[in-house]
């Protein structure tokens, strides 16, 4: 194994730069290191001004998503030795505005996530005395996959529809809406339909499918969206057949 590896890292200072530039760093290539370790090495030993987000270092918090050689990756879960023999280009997540270096601005995603109402909606709450809302393992299984989302936004960086149409709600928010729609305790599917069955909702998706390929938690947002398209289409057909609309 080579002793060092070159990292080509995006630098952008809003005070000084008109556009981002790449800066080369030579870092030790250690078998146990992930890309995030290399970035922390640069920050600790080479250039303390390098700015990036990270927190848990174990693929749970979803903070350290970046483009690694053009692919959206969690840098805490991407080993450095995988890129041995070539330079590693580390850039901020695509399609989001860049605040500084590798830090992106994700307020747009947060607003869209809220519009999808990713929480349990009940028309009526049963009295506390009646106990909790029970759920069978089968009922849990219908939505569990979609509940694994960590809001890392890698799927947004993989989605050209989001890049080309900023109104598109996007994969993670739609998958999370579907996660609650499929929950046996939820009664908010009708409420979410206004946002989901909309040209900016599921109908904006052209099923590129890369959101599912890059998801580090195997959530399958593309599947969630296509399943919802089928449901929305059936709902529309039923509304035509039902007397009174």
């Amino acid at each position: 194994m080579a002793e060092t590896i070159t990292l080509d890292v995006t630098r952008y200072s809003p005070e000084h730069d008109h556009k981002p530039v790449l800066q080369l760093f030579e870092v030790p290539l250690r078998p146990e290191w992930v890309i995030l370790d290399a970035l922390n090495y640069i920050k600790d030993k080479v250039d303390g001004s390098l700015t990036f987000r990270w927190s848990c270092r174990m693929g749970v918090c979803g903070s350290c998503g970046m483009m690694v050689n053009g692919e959206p990756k969690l840098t805490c879960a991407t080993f450095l030795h995988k890129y041995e023999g070539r330079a590693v280009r580390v850039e901020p997540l695509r399609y989001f505005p860049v605040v500084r270096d590798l830090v992106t601005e994700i307020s747009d995603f947060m607003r869209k996530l809220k519009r999808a109402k990713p929480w349990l909606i009940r028309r009526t709450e049963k009295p506390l005395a009646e106990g909790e809302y029970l759920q069978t393992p089968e009922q849990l299984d219908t939505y569990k996959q979609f509940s694994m989302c960590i809001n890392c936004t890698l799927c947004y960086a993989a989605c050209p529809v989001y890049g080309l149409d900023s109104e598109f709600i996007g994969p993670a928010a739609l998958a999370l809406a579907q996660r609650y729609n499929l929950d046996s305790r939820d009664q908010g599917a009708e409420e979410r339909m206004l946002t989901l069955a909309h040209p900016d909702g599921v109908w904006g998706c052209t099923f590129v499918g890369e959101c599912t390929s890059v998801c580090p938690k195997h959530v399958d947002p593309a599947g969630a969206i296509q399943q919802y398209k089928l449901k929305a289409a059936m709902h529309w057909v039923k509304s035509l057949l039902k007397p009174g609309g």
Partner: protein
Amino acid sequence: MDTHPTNPLPHYTEYHPRWYRQRVSTYWWLGSWPYVRFILRELSSLAVAFFVALTLAQIYALGQGAQVYAELQEWLRQPVVLALNVVVLLFAVFHTLTWFAAAPKAMAVRMRGKRVPEWAVAAPHYAAWMAASAFVTWFLLRG
């Protein structure tokens, strides 16, 4: 914190950094096979449209009489048109395969509390395709 002499509230300018926004290139799909494959898949619907138009043209020519139909057949026998048909057929097959690959993702069929595996949802599609193709082949070659 500094306050304005006549205004008791702190006086400062909210810092708002200049974000960098990159314009998405028209050629965003080049350089990555999954995106190229997606564009090819979308383009393949033109192949399906071509076969639909061709079939309609054949039916129309049939209605116009034997001579018109024979002229169309003659035109279809040209090497350039045959080559075009081969390319269109390849795209139509690609379209079909991608469509069948997408179907199990959109149809989350559940039986006895468990999701039916993707291959089991895709298999009937392929079976129907093979049956339809076998019928057409038999119909054309029955002599």
